[in-house]
């Protein structure tokens, strides 16, 4: 699904419409934060972001502006201190931050996140969720995120699109989350609306699993 939006896979039927125009093939306006960070291991953190910036803003920004833009995006995810380090020298959570910085640096119309925190421990995941909420509040850009974590989905999103079981998975139910922003994890933990949405989502997941057994 995300790969089709990103253009990495071609849809067998249907298409992808962005800003009123159909898009085909991958492109930086639909930047992807990959599941396993996908940083180039031979480049430093800075160079990884720089590769994207130099490609996307070639001819539109001067070298100094590019440098500033790279630093700015690394600062957004709090990674300025490690800009000279190689990916293997930093933790999984930090790699994913750099992945987000690289995607943001492409100035995408929509940022696609493919289970970005799946491989991280709970604490790091929580911190990165805060980072994403913070970035979203400051930049206000559209984010499409794939997740298997119902708490994460309710906490972060305005709309949860739930998929039926594959193969040939389709959109099952769309759940609008009307929780006020900014959202506080601890406050939400006791919020009845939060629990309602969470229960709604889980009920769908649970019934979707039951259906094949009944058939």
């Amino acid at each position, binding site marked *: 699904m995300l790969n089709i939006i990103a253009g*990495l896979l071609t849809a067998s039927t249907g298409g992808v419409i962005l800003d009123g125009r159909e898009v085909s093939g*991958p492109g930086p306006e639909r930047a992807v934060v990959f599941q396993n960070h996908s940083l180039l291991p*031979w480049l430093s953190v800075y160079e990884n972001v720089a590769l994207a910036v130099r*490609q*996307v803003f070639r001819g539109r920004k001067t070298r100094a502006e590019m440098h500033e833009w790279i630093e700015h995006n690394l600062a957004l995810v709090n990674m300025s201190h490690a800009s000279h380090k190689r990916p293997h020298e930093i933790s999984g959570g930090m790699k994913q931050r750099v992945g987000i910085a690289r995607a943001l640096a492409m100035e995408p119309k929509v940022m696609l996140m493919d289970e970005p925190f799946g491989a991280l421990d709970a604490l790091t995941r929580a911190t990165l969720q805060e980072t994403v909420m913070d970035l979203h509040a400051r930049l206000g850009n559209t984010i499409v995120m794939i997740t298997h974590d119902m708490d994460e989905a309710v906490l972060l999103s305005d709309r949860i699109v739930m998929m039926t079981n594959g193969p040939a998975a389709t959109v099952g139910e769309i759940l609008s989350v009307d929780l006020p922003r900014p959202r506080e994890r601890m406050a939400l933990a006791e919020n009845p609306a939060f629990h309602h949405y969470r229960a709604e989502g889980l009920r769908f997941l649970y019934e979707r699993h039951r259906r094949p057994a009944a058939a």
Partner: protein
Amino acid sequence: MNAWTRLRAARPVFPSLAWIRALILPLCGILAFLLVWHVAAGRISTSLGQFPGPADTARAAQGLYVEFQEEREKAVAFEARQAERNAARLAENPDAEVSVRAYAGRPTFPDQIRTSLVTVMSGFLLASLIAVPFGVLIGLSSGLYASANPLIQLLKPVSPLAWLPLVTLVVSAAYVSDDPLFAKSYLVSTITVMMCSLWPSLINTAVGVAGVDKDLVNVSRVLRLGWATHVRKIVLPSAVPMIFTGLRLSLGVAWMVLIAAEMLSQNPGLGKFVWDEFQNGNAQSLGRIMVAVLTIGLIGLVLDRGMLLLQRRLSWDKTAITR
């Protein structure tokens, strides 16, 4: 429990056990080998006398060193005589034509080592210059790979001894010059080494280039990198560890092939040394061949370690170092 026993308990009994293992165990291995060699050598008699044991080999090495010293003294003496003679002639007649000739003594053992090293390096470099670019090409194109693969698989197992007659004849026919820059024997062995050491580099480069991580390719696609940038920024760096592994294997093959090639092409290196000792065998020949065998092994080891160091210095992937 007093402080002393607690301290004893906290520290391992042999704090430097790892260090001892690293030093003592290889030494044990070498000693055991020397013992087996010594005993076995005493039981093998050949037409050239007793098979050399460790002691005979050491004596032969010493003999080779003495020969080298003598030859060098002769060379120094020759040059001194030549300089003296020329000076005398110039003093007699300032316009006299004086000639300076290099000393043409027989090659000593270190000379032969040098020749072998020069030959193996030229063959290896030539092979790398062909194998790496070509490997990149066939790695990038699955069509090219499919068409080249059967040929590569066919030519890869060919022994240097099979190539040698062909190479010799072609070089003799094609390289005709009154004042040749390179000796024919050198060219023949270099080309043979090249033909045989090409394959590991070629295959590893192709596999490395073809096996770029799919996620990294996706990064490149999202960024819409052009083909040239994609190859330069994503494909080549990611193939570097595999290319180095290939080069290291190639160098090993090159050194093995070289000895055989030199034996038959009469390139004045270690291979020819072994062959000559075998042909005009006397009582010391076996010992001298044994010295050559050990030298060949030692140089092979040094070449391999050298490539490993180079890889560690130049490659980004510090973990992909195999033993």
